């Protein structure tokens, strides 16, 4: 009998909760899995090349990919070691659309 169903309060709209949760988790997971898997190798090889010329710290290279609309930007920054003269570190950045 559903005679008294009218008297009960309507349950919360769970479908919209599901949709919102999914929207967030799917976007987050796409950002993670969309990341190219060659980055660690790229980082190591670049480090090896640089070390032929300059003795940099293994942690001195920072690589990441950012998505801006339809284009992806590969950002690479290398902190060169301080010279004798106090001038701070020199950072080089390369970008690619």
């Amino acid at each position: 009998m559903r005679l008294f169903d009218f008297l009960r309060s309507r349950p919360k709209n769970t479908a919209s909760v599901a949709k919102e949760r999914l929207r967030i988790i799917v976007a987050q997971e796409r950002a993670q899995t969309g990341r190219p898997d060659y980055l660690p190798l790229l980082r190591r090889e670049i480090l090896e090349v640089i070390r032929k010329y300059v003795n940099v710290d293994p942690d001195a290279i920072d690589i990441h990919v950012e998505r801006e609309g339809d284009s992806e930007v590969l950002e690479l920054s290398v902190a060169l070691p301080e010279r004798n003269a106090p001038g701070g570190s020199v950072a080089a950045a390369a970008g690619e659309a």
Partner: protein
Amino acid sequence: MTEIIVVTSGKGGVGKTTTAASLAVGLARRGKKVAVIDFDVGLRNLDLIMGCERRVVYDFVNVIHEECTLKQALIKDKRFDSLYVLAASQTRDKDALNKEGVERVLKELTDEGFDYVVCDSPAGIEKGASLAMYFADRAVVVVNPEVSSVRDSDRILGLLSSKTRRAELGNGPVEQHLLLTRYNPERVAGGDMMGIDDVKEILGIEVLGVIPESQGVLSASNAGVPVILDDQSDAGKAYEDAVARLAGETRPMRFIDAQKKGLFARIFGS
């Protein structure tokens, strides 16, 4: 030209095998030469859904390991002359499949003039599932309007655009379709189930069909008759529409609106 269609989902129990069987039967009923292959090695079920479980002598793994010919292993459907089933092995594990073997079988089916090869993927994202999708031209991603199924489908869509032969060779993307199953229009209307547009918006691909939740699906699997052949059931008719769309026809979605209940049913109905 042979088209390879993978039926996949990530999550188990959403209706992959039911869908693979019905799509294969629907395409064969349109006069196409179709083979449907069960990639779920160790847990075969396509033979039961197709109703040919007592006629399995050789299976997919036997063909891959060259223990029999492909012709010996293909089971001809009793209802449609142009439909063949290739069962999975029940005794081996999933490592019995390998890429070269699968490629050879698909090549042989192409040479035999098959129009379609439907690959019924196992659940998960391991070897069987990845091999089922690897050679695909098209993918039908089966999804229930429910959080875990939608999330897993998104993962599968990511794999389809990176871990397939088409993606690796740069031969254009695998054409992706969503098939919503176990859809309950009443619950969608009541706000308890995500609707077609919600799922489409989250996953961002087109919907090939919507199969309503139906008693017909269980009855069909009980009998070993793919549900598309039950023209009394809404699910059967919805699968027929999906096959028509797969073949390029335009058909409106049916069975997606809640039934209006009369006053009597609203008060006394179940």
